[in-house]
């Protein structure tokens, strides 16, 4: 079925993971640039969500877009997630390419039916005859005392339910490339951005939230992990903000002769299982770092991938996740549950000790 407003054959062939160049942006600005460049090329792309207009998105995902494209293409919605996410679905079915923002991943509870029973299932239920080329972007993550209902990651929940792709960039370069790929995809893509990697001035910053981003459009392929740091003694498989902490730990331990390989998953659906197996085949020791809840989620899945492939590959395995508790408010309590560099370091030392 061809769509009426956007035809796939009109999209340009974009470079895949080109040289980053020298120009630096924050992750937030990289997302804005990806959306802006796509909207300039394709009038069927539009943005919708709460406070995405003049406010620019609560976590700066859409800053500047309404000034450039106007309120017809950057729409502030009422607080009606079921209605506006569903509206995005219907618009996508009829050939538009909506980018819909769910303000916090934690809010999926009020609208999950549209997401997992409609957005994710329509393509399959229609035997491939109806496409839903939609991006659902959402802020996730804790570390700034926003409490149990505003600090969750939840990407494991979305990844668990069939029919939607799930991408989780950790840095500006991947954020722009994955956003472009997500908009370009004919499948529904859940794009989860950790607030702590956005480079926001009003949150404690980390250096890797600012990075080199090519000025032209490009793609980071959905479904491909990246070796963020090569190593030989232990594999850390991780994503999002935890990539940054893992790299910090790896740098520190290098001086002690412990060689840590860090795999940034970048996508959860599809999951780059080959990259996981390739790395663990080399090191034999696996630490999974995931800021989502520990049980019944991503970390178990990663370990299962290796175990199903060949359990003898694994000499040691450990996971560093948020335990099965609601995320506490008080700073010291919150940081006791988050996968901090200290916890990651302890896990790595633990698996290399034997």
């Amino acid at each position, binding site marked *: 079925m061809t769509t009426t407003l956007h035809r796939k054959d009109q999209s340009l062939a974009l470079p895949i993971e080109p040289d980053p160049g*020298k*120009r*630096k942006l*924050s992750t937030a*600005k990289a997302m804005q640039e990806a959306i802006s460049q796509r909207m300039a090329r394709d009038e069927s792309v539009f943005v919708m969500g709460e406070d995405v207009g003049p406010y620019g998105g609560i976590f700066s995902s859409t800053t500047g877009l309404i000034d450039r494209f106007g309120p017809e293409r950057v729409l502030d919605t009422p607080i009606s997630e079921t209605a506006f996410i569903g509206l995005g679905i219907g618009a996508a079915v009829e050939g538009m390419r909506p980018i819909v923002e769910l303000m916090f991943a934690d809010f999926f509870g009020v609208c999950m039916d549209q997401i997992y029973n409609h957005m994710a299932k329509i393509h399959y239920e229609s035997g491939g005859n109806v496409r839903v080329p939609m991006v659902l972007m959402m802020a996730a993550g804790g570390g700034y005392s926003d409490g149990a209902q505003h600090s969750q990651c939840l990407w494991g929940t979305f990844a668990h339910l069939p029919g939607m792709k799930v991408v989780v960039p950790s840095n500006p370069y991947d954020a722009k490339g994955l956003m472009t790929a997500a908009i370009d995809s004919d499948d529904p893509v859940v794009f989860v951005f950790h607030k702590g990697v956005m480079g926001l*001035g009003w949150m404690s*910053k980390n250096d890797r939230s*600012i990075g080199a981003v090519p000025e032209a459009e490009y793609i980071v392929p959905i479904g491909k992990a990246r070796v963020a740091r090569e190593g030989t003694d232990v594999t850390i498989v991780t994503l999002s903000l935890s990539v940054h902490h893992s790299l910090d730990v790896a740098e520190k331990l290098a001086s002690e002769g412990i060689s840590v390989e860090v795999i940034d998953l970048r996508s959860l659906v599809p999951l780059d299982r080959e990259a996981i197996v390739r790395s663990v085949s080399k090191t034999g020791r696996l630490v999974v770092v995931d800021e989502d809840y520990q049980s019944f989620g991503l970390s178990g899945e990663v370990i299962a991938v290796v175990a199903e492939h060949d359990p003898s590959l694994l000499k040691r395995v450990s996971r560093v996740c948020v335990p099965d508790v609601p995320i506490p408010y008080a700073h010291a309590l919150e940081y006791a549950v988050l996968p901090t560099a200290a916890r990651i370091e302890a896990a790595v030392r633990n698996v290399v000790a034997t």
Partner: protein
Amino acid sequence: MTDVLFPLMSGKADATGVIVTWFVESGDQVTPSTLIAEVAVDKVDAEVYPEISGVITLLVEESKEVPQGAVIAQVT
């Protein structure tokens, strides 16, 4: 050589601001389309671009209080 100034953002002349983020380092080559900094006064953000091309030298650290209009970098 051109001075890069902290933008005037607040009607209150004595309101100070901060460099929130430097996107370049001293010694980097910049052009008028290079985003060099994000600054803020009273939680309102602004982006700073240089007026000329050249090599930039940063004069102020991130998060330090800066008066509006102060020289924050130079481009030669």
